[in-house]
């Protein structure tokens, strides 16, 4: 690009500052990048370099180890080997018999570990435990003290009111440490491996009920689903440990590299890890409560983590085996740690085999052949894909946004299209097959999203033809719903014609139910001159098109109302529809045009939402329902636009989240499907989620505002006290007026707003529960509601009709709503549950029991 002289004065912005690396920084860098060419070859050279480095600087070495271990977990065994070797070296010019470098670093490293534990940096703590465990096998750390360290983590599992997030993280520290250090621990008869196993198993057993709600495959008829395609992470860990224990941890060597074993055994006194106390859970000190005293701060990570399993154990390792668990765990750590840079993450995932025991993965095409190791020789790309998809499908929520996992797979495909591409295809086919076997609706939703975004990055090339035979399935079958949804998402990212072109002939037909024949455009109800309100609508449309003042439009609508009143029964509904559809019509060119149209006529819309035209007033639910129905009618061919418009209607406070929730249950299907239904589908879920997230987000933001204002007020008060006492030496207690002065008018109104917003939040959640009660748990529900939850019906699902699938889906969305919003539902269980469950009949049948049970698991009331 050309460089223009006139811009020279900005040159400093782009000048690279010369960076000088000090010898210390260089050493640190070398330790961090250790092993990237060949860890075994580099080992003695790096140890020498560290030993010869002057002036000696233990803390810089320790820091490098700490970064290396916690940010590059795949290198941990090699860092252990390096530290073992440093136990044979002493500092330059140190007198004979003085403490080795390795020992000094280890002592220093320990302090850092303590810091991670104190800060509850769980991943870092766990990775340090790995490091210590390897050093235990290398005999550099005392076996007894390692065992005690593991026990301090299992002790967490005995705490009262233990959150699942905390428990599982502590349990994994213990479990993974034991997997690695097991060979040394098991040798010592005074240490009981089974004590640790029992503690872990005991905790897992206490979470059985929660687990049924977060399985990626749904079996409504049982509490204890035995599922081939789903594995809970702690379960995997315990299963792997039991296998290891059965063979006295002989398989540890097969699962983790142990490069330190090539050093001669360490015979001197090992390092004794000091005792560690895992500090209690951090509490939210802000503790802002709602008006009825509930805690409004939701706690997340309260569910067991279940990963969907797609491939056979000869293609990708079984995570319930020792080697399989080690690999899965390492890959998940890479995915989590390198979230900041998906491109580097993809590279590191593809390079992962070099850090594993030789023979773990099939060699890359073109690499020297090796003898396959029996029961290993897995396919790297398949394993990576299964791990990423498993992580992105964790219920109720993955660690990161879906788009991260999607973008990561895209990067993998770009790095190695020939090998990753086929793995993507195989994964899609496996997931698609699972749709018939109860793949959870939310997982299916994420699958469709991944599919669409992925295809959008790769020219929309998919072999749609292979799904043509499934067009004979009933329209609401999950496979057909998936096709529709995937196509809809693809169109949103692209355009109708483009997607039409890639579909096979059989899918382009209107009655194939895959894609609409026409592009999803707006539909102005009053366009046709034959429409009885055509003239009236035109007059409104012309005013809006001419950018008439809101007042003038109001005046016109008032007079129109008078005219139409004689001939029209529900004149207000008609006027609302005409006005809203006319605004949307003017705004239909683009999202920006829509915003402009809405903003220009906000006063009018707010009046309409209050049931009036030219005067304001209190919220009118019926008027708001009319507004939303008008929107959905206008955009009935484009559900994307309905979502966009509803979001902004809430943003501009024309409707409230509770209005949207109510509309979703009572009016949505009438407008979008043409007939009222008592079932809940993925689109309704999108609407519901948007409304609830809006309500929750407002509370979250207001909470932050209050916190800031409180802090300001406290500081002000503290300053005032300090000022007073400095000038007058008065007893602070004698001046009680100083402290309450902290409540500023801003703070008072912020707290008031917070109260209003939590009320709205509760009302939106309560309305949702009420909606699901109406659909699933009142006397008048369809017999299907009970039928689809039975084992017999499930095994007969090949013969299900649309209504069966729709009802099954409704159950699944209810479950998903419960687990997704459980942090809020737990807080509000008393108020929300009491009202809604009043309508649930006391006579029991299995469906009502299932409904109640789902609620009680969600809200943590195990024995309701």
């Amino acid at each position, binding site marked *: *690009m*050309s460089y223009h002289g006139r*811009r020279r004065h*900005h040159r*400093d*912005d*782009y000048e690279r500052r010369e960076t000088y690396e000090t010898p210390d920084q260089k050493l640190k860098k070398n330790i*961090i990048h250790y092993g990237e060419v060949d860890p075994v070859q580099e080992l003695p050279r790096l140890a020498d370099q560290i030993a010869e480095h002057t002036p000696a600087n233990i803390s810089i070495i320790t820091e490098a180890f700490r*970064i290396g271990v916690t*940010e*590059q977990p795949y290198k941990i065994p090699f860092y252990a080997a390096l530290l073992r070797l440093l136990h044979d070296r002493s500092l330059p010019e140190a007198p004979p018999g003085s403490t080795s470098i390795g020992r000094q670093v280890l002592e220093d490293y320990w302090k850092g570990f303590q810091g991670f534990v104190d800060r509850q940096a769980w991943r870092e703590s766990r990775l340090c435990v790995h490091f210590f465990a390897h050093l235990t096998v290398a005999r550099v750390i005392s076996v007894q003290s390692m065992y005690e360290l593991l026990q301090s983590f299992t002790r967490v599992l005995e705490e009262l009111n233990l959150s699942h997030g905390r428990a599982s993280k502590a349990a994994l520290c213990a479990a993974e440490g034991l997997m690695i250090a097991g060979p040394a621990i098991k040798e010592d008869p005074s240490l009981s491996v089974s004590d640790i196993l029992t503690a872990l198993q005991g905790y897992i057993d206490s979470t059985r009920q929660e687990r049924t709600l977060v399985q990626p495959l749904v079996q409504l008829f049982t509490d204890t689903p035995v599922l081939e395609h789903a594995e809970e992470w702690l379960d995997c860990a315990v299963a792997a440990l039991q296998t290891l224990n059965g063979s006295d941890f002989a398989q540890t060597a097969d699962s983790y590299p142990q490069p330190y074993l090539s050093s001669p055994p360490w015979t001197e006194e090992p390092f004794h890890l000091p005792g560690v106390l895992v500090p209690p859970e951090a509490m939210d000190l802000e503790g802002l409560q709602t008006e009825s005293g509930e805690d409004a701060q939701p706690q997340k990570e309260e569910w067991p983590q279940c990963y969907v399993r797609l491939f056979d154990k000869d293609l990708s390792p079984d995570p319930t085996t020792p080697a399989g668990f080690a690999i899965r765990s390492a890959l998940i750590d890479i995915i989590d740690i*390198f*979230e*900041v*840079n*998906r491109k580097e993450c993809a590279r590191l995932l593809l390079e992962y085999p070099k850090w594993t025991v030789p023979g773990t993965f099939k060699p890359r095409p073109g690499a020297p052949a090796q003898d396959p190791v029996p029961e290993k020789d897995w396919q790297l790309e398949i394993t990576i894909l299964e791990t990423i998809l498993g992580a992105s499908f964790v219920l109720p929520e993955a660690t990161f*946004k879906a*788009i*991260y996992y999607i*973008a990561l797979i*895209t990067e993998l495909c770009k790095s190695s299209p020939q090998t990753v591409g086929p793995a993507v295809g195989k994964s899609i086919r496996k997931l698609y097959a699972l749709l018939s076997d109860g793949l959870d609706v939310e997982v299916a939703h994420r699958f469709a999203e991944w599919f669409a*975004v992925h295809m*959008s*990055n790769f*020219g929309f090339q998919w072999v749609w033809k292979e799904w043509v035979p499934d067009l004979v399935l009933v329209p609401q079958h999950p496979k057909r719903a998936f096709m529709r949804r995937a196509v809809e998402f693809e169109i*949103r*990212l692209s355009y109708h014609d483009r997607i039409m072109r890639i579909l096979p002939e059989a899918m382009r037909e209107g009655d194939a139910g895959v894609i609409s024949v026409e592009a999803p455009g707006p539909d102005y109800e009053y366009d046709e001159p034959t429409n009885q309100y055509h003239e009236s609508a035109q007059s409104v449309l012309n005013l809006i098109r001419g950018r008439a003042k809101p007042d003038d439009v109001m005046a016109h609508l008032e007079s129109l109302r008078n005219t139409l009143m004689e001939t029209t029964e529900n004149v207000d509904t008609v006027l609302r529809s005409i006005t809203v559809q006319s605004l949307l019509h003017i705004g239909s*060119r*683009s*999202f*920006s045009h829509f*915003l402009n149209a*809405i*903003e220009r006529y906000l006063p009018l819309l*707010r009046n309409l*939402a209050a049931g009036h035209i030219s005067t*304001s*007033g*209190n*919220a009118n639910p019926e008027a708001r329902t009319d507004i939303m129905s008008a929107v959905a009618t206008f955009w009935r061919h484009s559900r*994307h636009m309905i979502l*966009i418009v509803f*979001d902004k209607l809430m*943003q*501009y*406070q024309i409707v*409230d989240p509770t209005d949207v929730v109510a509309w979703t249950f009572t009016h949505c299907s009438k407008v979008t499907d043409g007939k009222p239904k008592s079932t809940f589908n993925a689109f309704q879920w999108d609407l519901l989620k*948007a409304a609830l*997230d809006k309500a*929750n*987000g*407002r509370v*979250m*933001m*207001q909470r932050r505002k209050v916190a800031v204002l409180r802090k300001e007020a406290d500081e002000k008060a503290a300053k005032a006290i300090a000022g007073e006492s400095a000038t007058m030496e008065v007893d602070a207690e004698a001046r009680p007026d100083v402290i309450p002065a902290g409540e500023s*008018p*801003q703070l008072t109104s912020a707290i*008031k707003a917070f109260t*209003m917003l939590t009320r*709205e939040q509760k009302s939106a959640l309560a309305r949702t529960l009420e909606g699901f009660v109406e659909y699933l748990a009142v006397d008048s529900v369809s017999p299907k509601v009970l039928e689809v939850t039975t084992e017999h019906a499930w095994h007969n699902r090949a013969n299900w009709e649309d209504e069966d699938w729709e009802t099954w889906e409704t159950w699944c969305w209810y479950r998903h709503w419960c687990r997704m919003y459980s942090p809020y539902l737990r807080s509000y269980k008393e108020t929300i549950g009491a009202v809604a469950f009043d309508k649930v009949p006391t006579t029991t049948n299995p469906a009502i029991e299932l409904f109640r049970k789902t609620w009680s698991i969600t809200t943590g009331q195990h024995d309701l």
Partner: protein
Amino acid sequence: MAHIVASLDQPSNYKDSQSRIDRQTQAEILARSTTLYVGNLSFYTTEEQIYELFSKCTTPEDGGGIKRIIMGLDRNTRTPCGFCFVEYYTHAEALACLRYISGTKLDERIIRCDLDVGYKDGRQFGRGKSGGQVRDEHRQDYDPGRGGWGAQAQRMEAERRREVEERYQDAQNVPGAVAGGGGDWKAEHSQTTTTLKRGRSPEEEPEGGRGEPRARVDEPDHDANRM
């Protein structure tokens, strides 16, 4: 995590070349910016397509969402000229786009995202001599997504998709012509509880005011410094 690899959400060297603000001030604005500059769009990409992709980085449960999208237009023809601004409600959402969206495809083109100091009236128009972006004036290659050959050919191809080309004919270059997208929740709009009109609290901003850094920044040329 900066030890092993660089985070993708660090500000790049994208910068307003005509800006008079110093680097530090700019860095401070970007450190809380909620606006993205999105470049290398096809001229035919719609706001709804942009909305769909960029909504994948929103965190509504945290008070976030897409506030507005401002399509970059050719100053003379009032047609999209390959860039836009996406404004969120939170800074974290803009950062997420740098990590997950920048460098991936939209409408089959690899787009790039950069943190921006914030939209100001008039910035939606390209500043190339022909009215479009400067980069398209220098372009030598054939690019169907950007109207074929360089600046000259663009007008020749303009007939191709009339609907897209006509969409923004009403775009105005006057203050307030671009919608705000809706601001924070306010008690006074919540009719359910309105019993008394109350005055504005001092901390409340006018509609659409939130999240727009009030930087005194000259209009940037979005291409001059992309190399």
